[in-house]
């Protein structure tokens, strides 16, 4: 299916382990977002990139989360070390004319 790609789709890890998620946005979309969606809540923005620069990372827990978007195309989000409360769906989106296009998400379970 064309659109924003994410991998893996599911990941189960133990607390204190590390995990990385990958996102490939729609070609030509300059803006890329990573959201955390905890069960029963709306998506919460973790970080927003404009090309390869960060424009908003105010809600990113920087002691454990990091993200990069090298070359202004695909992006990775890393959690190191993971905590139980990091269990959530991690959504990647890219936007065009302020419409966001979402990937399928990565469901992370931390045991």
């Amino acid at each position, binding site marked *: 299916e064309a659109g924003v790609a994410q991998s893996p789709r599911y990941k189960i890890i133990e607390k204190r382990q590390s995990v990385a998620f990958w996102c490939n946005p729609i070609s030509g979309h300059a803006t890329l977002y990573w959201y955390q969606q905890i069960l029963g809540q709306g998506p919460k923005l973790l970080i927003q990139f404009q090309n390869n620069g960060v*424009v908003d990372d105010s809600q990113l827990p920087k002691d454990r989360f990091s993200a990069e978007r090298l070359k202004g195309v695909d992006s990775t989000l890393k959690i190191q070390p993971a905590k139980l409360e990091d269990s959530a769906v991690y959504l990647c989106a890219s936007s065009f004319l*302020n419409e966001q296009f979402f990937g399928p998400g990565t469901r992370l379970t931390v045991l």
Partner: protein
Amino acid sequence: AQRVTQPEKLLSVFKGAPVELKCNYSYSGSPELFWYVQYSRQRLQLLLRHISRESIKGFTADLNKGETSFHLKKPFAQEEDSAMYYCALSAKTSYDKVIFGPGTSLSVIP
């Protein structure tokens, strides 16, 4: 601070009945408002945005700046409308910051 509230977590209506999903926001500037929808096993996707002022799948939403609301309405609900609906606000800063509400799960009963 910008905020989006959706007072109903769950909403059940019968097929053919009118439906209204409520959304209120707080923002001091001129926001752009959106409704996003997530059908079962599908991706989150845009349903409509206030600047387009169009009806999508029979849904409409009017921005009421006085009441700071952007309620989503449909006169006759269909079973295929059952989904999770999120109201979102784009704050016009130096970049387009988007804030999502907590969502309302709509169930249309046949």
